[in-house]
């Protein structure tokens, strides 16, 4: 009996050690595990005033437990193919679907966009292609894959038509036999792309679709290196409601998936702060007159208008708003931070702010070198679609170099990149492989966008008229 206390002590120590081991194994998880999804401020969390959810998703790293890692590398190849899918062709002959000057356009160094054709997004797609091309060319100048085999960009068009993008991806996977894919811009086609990628088991890097739901699908093959509209909406909502103290905002957005999905987090944030939209009106992509909607909004006595749509429509909404004597704040998405927007709105733009995906005035040597290289190669300065495509393609090339020619292992390497220092800055990825670098706010001053971080806006050093 005298040994009983000793026995109990041994058991206790064992239990303590045992619990310690259990706790260690439970906490021994990848560092990018989050406690809150999407860096969502508590006041913007759904239902936070009422209850805690039964289950939270997207907090632990996505896994791929399939068989793909066992597939051996091919014995001999002439090039390491990487797929590109994006809207790069403006016009398609309706009769037979033949693209106009496809070869010329793919290889053309300088592209001038002169209007709306089949794809509204072709100018952005061309920038994305140029950024991708530059990354591949530079990798090949450094010797190619493991210093032996050149990388090859296999380019396919996504003309914004739902009927074609899925097939193009299937061709990339099964006919072109690419190792990974970069694409695309439009939310509809991006979703189609990742659903194909999921079944075919191939990594997809997105550098241009900012739809929050794109990544919220639990697909372990999908990566995004651009800050999304969740982050941009939070930054814009903070600015509009907390900094400026606005309370009555109306929405006038594009009647398409981009307009519907990308404004979502701003709308939710406004509601959760107690300032739901006064109204939410729509316009068709390509519209040029918005006076009927603006007159309705004017009568409602709002103190701000937000739009989500393409650059041109956003600019026309602003211009017509000012013509009606509406001097309220005008908010919008990163798509309106373009030379086209500035050209249309002119100098009488008034109070304008937009969410933006990175800090384009960065003096980071890596960014400056990229700007110089891009300008030399294409004869013009890069913008957001080119810069993010360069980063995304560079990440794919890095992952292929490390993993070898196996799609699942390339996926694993991308999943392991919890951070990446690209030309668009230091990116930090969350457990579902989405770049969660905070967005910046672009504010239009004297005909030029200036970019501010959240810290700068709330530092007290800056004053804004509300």
């Amino acid at each position, binding site marked *: 009996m005298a040994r009983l206390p000793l026995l109990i002590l041994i058991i*206790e120590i064992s239990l303590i050690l045992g619990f310690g081991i259990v706790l260690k194994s439970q906490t021994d998880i990848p560092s990018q595990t989050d406690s809150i999804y999407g860096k969502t401020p508590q006041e913007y969390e759904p239902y936070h005033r009422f209850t805690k959810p039964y*289950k939270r998703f997207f907090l632990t790293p996505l896994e791929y*437990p*399939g068989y793909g890692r066992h597939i051996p590398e091919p014995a001999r190849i002439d090039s390491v193919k990487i797929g590109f899918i994006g809207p790069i062709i403006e016009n398609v002959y309706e009769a037979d679907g033949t693209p106009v000057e496809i070869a010329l356009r793919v290889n053309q160094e300088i592209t001038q966009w002169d209007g709306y054709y089949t794809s509204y997004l072709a100018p952005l797609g061309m920038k994305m292609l140029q950024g991708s091309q530059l990354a591949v060319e530079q990798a090949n100048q450094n010797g190619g894959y493991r210093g032996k085999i050149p990388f090859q960009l296999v380019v396919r068009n996504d003309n914004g038509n739902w009927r074609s993008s899925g097939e193009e991806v299937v061709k990339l996977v*099964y006919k072109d036999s690419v190792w990974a894919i970069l694409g695309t811009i439009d939310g509809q086609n991006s979703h*189609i792309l990742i659903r*194909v990628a999921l079944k075919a*088991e191939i990594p997809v890097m997105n550098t241009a679709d900012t739809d929050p739901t794109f990544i919220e699908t639990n697909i372990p093959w999908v990566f995004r290196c651009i800050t999304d509209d969740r982050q941009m909406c939070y930054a814009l909502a903070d600015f509009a409601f907390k900094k400026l103290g606005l309370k009555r905002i109306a929405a006038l957005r594009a009647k398409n998936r981009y307009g519907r999905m990308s404004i979502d987090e701003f709308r939710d944030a406004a509601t959760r702060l107690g300032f739901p939209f006064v109204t939410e009106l729509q316009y068709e992509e390509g519209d040029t007159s918005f006076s009927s909607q603006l007159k309705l909004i004017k009568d409602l006595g709002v103190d701000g208008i937000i739009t989500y749509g393409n650059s041109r429509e956003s600019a026309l909404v602003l211009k017509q708003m000012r013509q009606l004597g509406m001097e309220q704040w005008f908010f919008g998405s990163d798509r309106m931070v373009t030379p086209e927007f500035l050209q249309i709105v002119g100098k009488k733009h008034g109070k304008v702010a937009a969410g933006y995906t990175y800090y384009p005035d960065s003096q980071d040597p890596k960014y400056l070198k990229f700007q110089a290289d891009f300008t030399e190669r294409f004869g013009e300065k890069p913008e957001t679609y080119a810069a993010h495509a360069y980063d995304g393609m560079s990440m794919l090339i890095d992952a292929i170099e490390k993993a070898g020619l196996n799609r699942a292992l390339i996926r694993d390497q991308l999943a392991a990149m919890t951070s990446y220092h690209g030309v668009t800055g230091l990116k930090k990825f969350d457990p579902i492989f989405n770049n969660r670098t905070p967005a910046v706010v672009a504010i239009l001053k004297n005909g030029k966008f200036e970019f501010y971080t959240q810290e700068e806006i709330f530092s007290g050093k800056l004053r804004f008229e509300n």
Partner: protein
Amino acid sequence: MKYFILIISQLFISGITSAWAQADPAIKIPYVYTEWESFTTESTNGALVNDHIFFLKADRDSLWVGTENGLMLYHEGNWKSWTEKEGLPWRVVIGIAKDQKTGDLWLALFGEGIARFSGGQFEHFTQMNSGLLNDVVYNLDIEGDNVWIATTAGISRYNQLTGEWETYNERHAPMEEVWVYNVDATPEKVFFAVWGSGILEWDIKDQDWTEYLDPDGEMEIDLYRDDGLIHVITTAASYVDKILWASTYFGLSRYDGRNWRGYHDHDSGLPSVFINFVLGRSGSSSYSCTDKGLGVLADFETDTWVTYHRKTEDAKYWTADIMVGKELIKSVETNLDLPNHFMIAVEFMGTDVWIGTGHGLARGIGKDYYPGLR
């Protein structure tokens, strides 16, 4: 010190209770498939043309197999294959339906439309030569004279008698998104799993739609477990005994027409919430193909599960874990030796069950099979 003694006492008691429960002959357990036959390209000396199994369809005592590189037919130990060399219009067969009236086989070709396999000939339907909405097809099924087709741009319906095509997308049906993943046709209703738009139900008698969405409307949470469909990213629907089983990449849902029940991996025997496909065996039992094994809800009333999976990466054989809710009751070794438990397809053939994975397929021998518990 007294707290540790208390903990030890409780653990001791709980251990005894657990051991007693396992030994208690009065506890009823579900049927467990312990005897399996496995098939890979290697084990069949190439007779199975591809190991990446996308779909399984039983045809009396034969099995049709859709793979990433061809169509297969298994019958009494023999394999027959159709690849592009044998006239198959496209290599990736992702869905199969058998028209019981005509005997024709309908194939969903991933990226190349659909095909009718009749009299040894393939008839190819694409968006360029027919009314098919899109060539990226995920699944199809037969209802009466109609072939219902799940495409990435919406739903197509082809009437075999009239040759008419109907289209259902965001303009003609209550679907916010149009990426249709799966279809299950029954004599009363046709169900669609629509990626991003939950479950759509087509009532054949009323010729009308009903939609089922996640009531909380948020992608990042499930607000309440049993308030409705777990998530709108749905992957499959299976309607049996007037019970709807719906799989998502966030868990499993069951709907009896009045009440919903949700299942996650932390509160049930599901090995993972990432469910590629679900097939109902009855209103009380369903088989979920997850990325970490097969989750079988064997008895709904008692929340009893059998989870088939490889316990470790090095495990040669799969283990069947019998669970009530999340509590492990008993582990049973099986002879199932497929090298990976990424489950994609499942099908019943009498009392047997077939499973398809990312690397091979297997048949569970249902000798003395019984439903429910015994």
